[in-house]
């Protein structure tokens, strides 16, 4: 069963990867266009994704998942420093690299070697956060 579900998650990832490429959400140019307010495309992607996600979450809350666990929403901690500072740092990287983690994986698959280096940078950043976590204000 576990193998079957892992295959389902893999398929869901594949659909996500194809969609990120085909919507050009994975395009460095589209990201720059978004931050320069040049087109509605990526705003539309995020906004319509949230609307669909929101409806789906409301319909499923409290039901049982196929794997068996009850579907529940884990509330995120309400300590604000991390969202403000961490969020800003993430945003800087998002604009500078012109990609976020999902599109980076899709573009590695698409055969762009620069995104392998970008991915290594992401792992380094994650590791350094792990080292500094106890001294950073959250």
């Amino acid at each position, binding site marked *: 069963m576990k193998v079957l579900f892992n295959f389902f*998650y893999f398929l*869901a*990832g*594949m*659909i*996500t*990867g*194809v*969609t990120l490429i*085909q*919507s*050009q959400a994975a395009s*460095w*140019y589209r990201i*720059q*266009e978004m*931050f*320069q307010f*040049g*087109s*509605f495309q990526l705003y*539309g992607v*995020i906004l319509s*994704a949230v*609307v*669909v996600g*929101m409806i789906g*979450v409301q319909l*499923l809350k409290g039901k049982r*998942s*196929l794997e068996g*666990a009850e*579907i*529940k*929403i884990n509330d995120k901690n309400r300590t604000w420093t*991390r*969202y403000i500072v961490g*969020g*800003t*740092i*993430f*945003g*800087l990287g998002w*604009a500078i*690299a*012109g990609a976020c*983690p*999902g599109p980076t*994986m899709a573009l590695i*698959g698409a055969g762009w*070697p*620069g995104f392998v*280096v970008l991915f290594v*940078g*992401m792992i*380094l950043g*994650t*590791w350094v*956060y*792990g080292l500094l976590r106890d001294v950073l204000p959250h």
Partner: protein
Amino acid sequence: MENILTQLWPWYIAGPILGAMVPLLLWLGNKDFGISANLRHICAMWPGKKPAFFRYDWKGQQWNLWFALGIVVGGYVSGYLYPGDPVDINPVVVERIQSWGASAPQTIVPPELFGAAALASWKVWIYLLLGGFLIGFGARYGGGCTSGHAISGLSALQLPSLVASTFFFVGGLIGAWWILPRLVVWITGGGA
């Protein structure tokens, strides 16, 4: 089929598909859509000494690694087997990008920053590692990336995700208007 995989999917097709991943993953196994968590799982695979943040059973999060592998394969199919039409963006943006010395869009990303030949330049390595570092560090510090906060967090009406997404955008505007143009000029030597 080929046609579908070469043309641009408009936002009202692509957005709902991506948004549907949130309930799909919940329905399959009460899983949270969040791609950058995989960066943490990869760190947790390190067998040697590691910070407490990475000491947990990453194998329990395998589903997300399968999901990430799916993204890579999806990218291979749609980006490598069927590369699409040139990205057609706002001409004002093209002009601005060209003024930094980058090329107008012919491929999904600029080859002078992400292509194999670009990696001959140490400046490109600095650019990529810096960008990646900020993304990885910021995603874990901020508790998620675009998928975890801007899509699944907002879908679940999480106020922290709204704050995080707002500041993704604040950082993004600073990066896009103030830092990136200088970095690209530094790499390419500037435009005409």
